């Protein structure tokens, strides 16, 4: 949630989650095609050739002026494939509400429950739970023949007693009701927090760490050209760094920050936080700092090349960064 009093704006982030091919992207396509043009922005999709979401889909919606504030929703989808977990995690950062798009077809129950478990785990890393975050389950593909009954789906998936909506994203049925239900819950949540002067807190310091990526980082670490990798086990950031709690209120955008010890780590001495190191006091030996001195010349050289090659090997999802560049280029004309 971003409340920007300087720009008189309220921004909320809604994420469509669920297993691969359950209909998340289709939901956004329907919203994009049916919403009045004045209320919607462009639908940005970063997909592979096979039409599967590689990074995320993004659709900004503009509710217009509400009580003096320009109110906007940013809708995201996540890629369903198991191996893109690091992407799912980063999309969840700062989420205000989640739609879980379940595939109603028989034979898909296990994929649905796996994805739901994965959602819980990823939210937990940001200190969020399904009980305390606005959450709606959409039972999609109701138009098909061989599907589970709502009762069966409820029993398997709806353990938190969330509101559910039956939908057929293909025909558009149930898509707006799902969005409106969740958006309403997000707005109520916002009001509650505001009126009780409880300001939004957010866990940020925890880095997204993907189990799949962990394993592959280990492989890369074995390569002779990565001397630094073995000294940095993937899970470190999440386990040792103090969590940073932030609040975003008043006078323009006002990031307030407090540090709290990580869960169950009262005896652990907080590490020096990366905040200042990153912004200004980074060791001069870092490649970025050196580049500043080099002026005109873009970051090049063997180290950079090594980074690029390694990156492609190590992180399947990192290919998305390259897609990003392409999409950014297009947006910039």
């Amino acid at each position, binding site marked *: 949630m971003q409340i920007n009093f300087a720009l008189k704006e309220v921004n909320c982030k809604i994420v469509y989650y669920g297993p691969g091919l359950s209909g998340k992207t289709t939901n956004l396509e329907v919203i994009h095609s049916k919403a*009045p043009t004045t209320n919607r922005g462009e639908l*940005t999709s970063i997909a592979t050739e096979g039409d599967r979401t590689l990074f995320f889909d993004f659709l900004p919606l503009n509710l217009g002026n509400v*009580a003096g504030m320009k109110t906007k929703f940013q809708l995201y989808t996540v890629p369903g494939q198991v191996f893109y977990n690091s992407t799912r995690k980063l999309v969840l950062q700062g989420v205000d509400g989640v739609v879980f798009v379940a595939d109603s077809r028989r034979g898909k129950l296990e994929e649905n429950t796996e994805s739901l478990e994965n959602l819980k785990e990823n939210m937990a890393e940001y200190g969020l739970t399904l009980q305390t975050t606005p959450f709606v389950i959409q039972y999609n593909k109701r138009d098909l023949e061989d599907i589970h009954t709502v009762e069966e789906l409820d029993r398997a998936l709806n353990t938190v007693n969330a509101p559910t909506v039956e939908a057929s994203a293909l025909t558009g049925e149930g898509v707006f009701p799902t969005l409106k239900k969740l958006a309403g819950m997000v707005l109520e949540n916002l009001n509650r927090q505001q009126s009780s002067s409880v300001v939004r807190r957010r866990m940020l310091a925890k880095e997204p760490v993907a189990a799949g990526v962990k394993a592959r980082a280990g492989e890369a670490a074995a390569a002779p050209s990565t001397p630094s990798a073995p000294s940095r086990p993937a899970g470190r950031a999440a386990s040792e760094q103090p969590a940073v709690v932030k609040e975003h209120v008043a006078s323009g955008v006002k990031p307030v*920050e407090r540090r709290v010890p990580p869960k169950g780590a009262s005896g652990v001495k907080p590490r020096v936080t990366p905040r200042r190191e990153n*912004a200004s006091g980074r060791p001069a030996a870092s490649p970025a700092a050196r580049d500043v001195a080099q002026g005109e010349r873009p970051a090049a050289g063997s180290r950079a090349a090594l980074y690029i090659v390694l990156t492609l090997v*190590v992180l399947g999802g990192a290919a998305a960064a390259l897609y990003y560049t392409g999409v950014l280029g297009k947006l910039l004309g």
Partner: protein
Amino acid sequence: MSDSKCIILIDREGYMVTKTGHTEDFDMQAISALVAGSYAATREMARLLGEEEFSVLFHQGKRDSIQLTLVGDRTILATVFDERTTIGMVRLYAKEASQKLDKLFEDISQRDDDGSEHIGADFAKSAKDQLDAVFSD
């Protein structure tokens, strides 16, 4: 400042905080979301490579280029520029600006919230009415 076309300040969660310069032609919301995503992907790369963080990112285009500089641990300064200026200039200014902004954010965060600004109590109700009006089937 460094003859760049525009400068955008973007929250790590993908929201634009503020902007300056010639931004009319660009889809700012999408750019903000992509910059934040791009940054997060790069951070993940850095982590896997054993780097603390890549504090500067640079995408070069035929005409326009974009440079991303980290400000504190929450915000990204994106500078869009063309051939009228050089990477060196942009880097220099962006670094300086980033340090100043970080200091500014730090100062602001020290200040107490006097509670003078709040969302009105009827906000949710009005917003929901609007939702119904705008997104009707």
